[in-house]
């Protein structure tokens, strides 16, 4: 046995052990949008929180909320993080995925989605969210979060949603265009777009959703099979996610004594990380405008999720047999908010 052979053997063993060490990192994938609202996972990756938990996380980016839920339900991704829609609940109701932690929510004091009136409608007296009845309102899609927000508003303000003519226009860009062309009386738009529309002068912000109906807008969810078969991995993932949520809240959710939001050094430190992943690349100002409220401890407004499902079911947009209790797994995050009394 030559020395050369022993050396080669040793090299091979070394290479093999290196591979084993690398594969000790558990691989998981998460489907997400390149939006500011996905920030916690960007932070967790960039600051190495996933790695600390021994996770190697792969991002799978999509350009709409629906495919994210489909990808997780189909097993193409282990986790997903996005807004909760009628389509999401229908998919979740088939048992393929479960909500495990909170993402964005409408929280008083944090501008996120605005009610807008077109310039003409505003001048004609459409100045208050109570005046939606009889108006033509642009939304993106039937069963979208905007649709639900209008539904909640109608319940709070006591008007019938059927008295509002909804125009599904498929995209934010189309909604903005319809507002600009005065083809609709009003619309719901995210803060960023709302500020831009008001600045351009073709629409007026007449209120914010957080002032009317706070609610749980988005969530982190996992495939049911992942939860069953890789429970420890999900726990690790959530731990890293919560650490990032705390960072995010610390940086972006501070308010002064008057209730005005303040962005300090911690925000400045996180903005470059967020800019790295969000597309199209936002300016620091845009990041701040889009920085929605995310619970620092990842807690969900549980009761609201029950309400959402009930509302969609009442509209005939979610199947009757979808059960909120079965699509929530509240075991990964402690002390969820507002649990329903059963």
């Amino acid at each position: 046995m030559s020395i050369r052979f022993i050396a080669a053997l040793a090299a091979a063993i070394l290479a093999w052990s290196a591979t084993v060490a690398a594969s000790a990192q558990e691989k998981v994938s998460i489907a997400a949008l390149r939006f500011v609202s996905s920030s916690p996972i960007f932070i967790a990756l960039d600051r190495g929180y996933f790695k600390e938990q021994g996770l190697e996380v792969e991002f799978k980016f999509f350009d709409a909320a629906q495919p994210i839920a489909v990808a997780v339900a189909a097993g193409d991704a282990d986790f997903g993080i996005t807004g909760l829609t009628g389509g999401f609940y229908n998919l979740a109701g088939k048992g393929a995925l479960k909500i495990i932690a909170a993402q964005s929510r409408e929280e008083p004091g944090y501008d996120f989605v605005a009610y807008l009136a077109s310039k003409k409608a505003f001048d004609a007296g459409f100045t208050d969210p109570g005046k939606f009845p009889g108006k033509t309102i642009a939304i993106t899609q039937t069963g979208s979060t905007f649709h639900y927000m209008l539904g909640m508003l109608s319940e709070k303000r006591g008007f019938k949603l059927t008295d509002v003519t909804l125009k599904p226009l498929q995209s934010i860009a189309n909604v903005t265009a319809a507002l600009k062309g005065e083809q609709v009386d009003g619309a719901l738009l995210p803060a960023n777009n709302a500020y831009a529309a008001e600045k351009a002068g073709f629409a007026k912000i007449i209120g914010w959703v957080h002032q009317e109906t706070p609610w749980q807008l988005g969530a982190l969810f996992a495939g049911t099979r992942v939860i069953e078969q890789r429970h420890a991995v999900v726990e690790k993932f959530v731990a890293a996610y919560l650490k990032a949520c705390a960072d995010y809240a610390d940086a972006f959710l501070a308010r002064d004594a008057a209730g005005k939001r303040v962005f300090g050094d911690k925000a400045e430190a996180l903005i470059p990380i967020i800019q790295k992943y969000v597309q199209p690349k936002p300016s620091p100002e845009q990041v701040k405008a889009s920085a929605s409220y995310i619970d620092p401890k990842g807690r969900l407004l549980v009761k609201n999720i029950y309400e959402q499902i009930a509302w969609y079911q009442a509209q005939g947009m979610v199947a009757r047999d979808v059960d909120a209790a079965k699509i929530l797994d509240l075991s990964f995050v402690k002390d969820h908010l507002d649990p329903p009394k059963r």
Partner: protein
Amino acid sequence: MPEPDVRGAGGVADGSATIAFRGGGFQPQPRRLVPFIVFVLVIGLWQAASWRGWLPDLFMPSPWQIVGAFGDMLHSGTLTRHVGASLSRIALGWLFGTTAGLAVGLAMGIFSVARAGGLPVVSALFPIPKIALLPLFILWFGIGEPSKVATIGFGVFFPTVIAAYTACDSVPRNLIRMGQSFGLPAHAIVWKIVVPGAMPGILAGFRITASIALILVVAAEMIGAEYGIGAFILSAGNLMQTDQLLAGVTLLSLLGLAVSTVLGAVERIVLRWR
């Protein structure tokens, strides 16, 4: 004497033989029951696969669930609203597109100047997917009914033009010469010879444009439609209601079947002379 090589009927002692039949076959015969049986078999297999769990209903709802979705629509009364909204858009759009298309197509079939001028324009515009023009239509016609009717109308227009002028070309020239030899004025030659002669081609074009109108109603109803089969399909897609989505698609294909039946009847009446 060697026996003759006889197949089929056996040879006879005197050496004569019946000639074995070797014709037949290769001639499609109508079999009325077969399509029905195939249809039932496919649906049955599909339903069975769903029951046995081979087809998870997350990815493919069972026929029974689709029927249920139909039942819901009937029950809530939305079915008639969806069908009514789509039908009126399809009918209006098809009518506008066909009227304009026939006018232009016949002009191109009859007048050299119209053809020379129109052909390059039509050839250039025909292949443009009308869905790509949707934003423009919204700017021009708004998000109400006109943009939807226009989307369908434009989609129908170009194939109609092409069907009409090629149909004019297919009218036998000797019939036109005959008209001239009997001193028929030009307008009489157009209305009494060219147009009826082009009718088979034009009607064949109608079959195509009717399908195009049905396809485009989904695109047309993407923008600002509360009711309509296309809007229903899109919203079912958004909501991941796959059973309703397939119910909507089934509705569209039933509509297509109905339209094709109507056109078949029209053809039988108008083209009785063939």
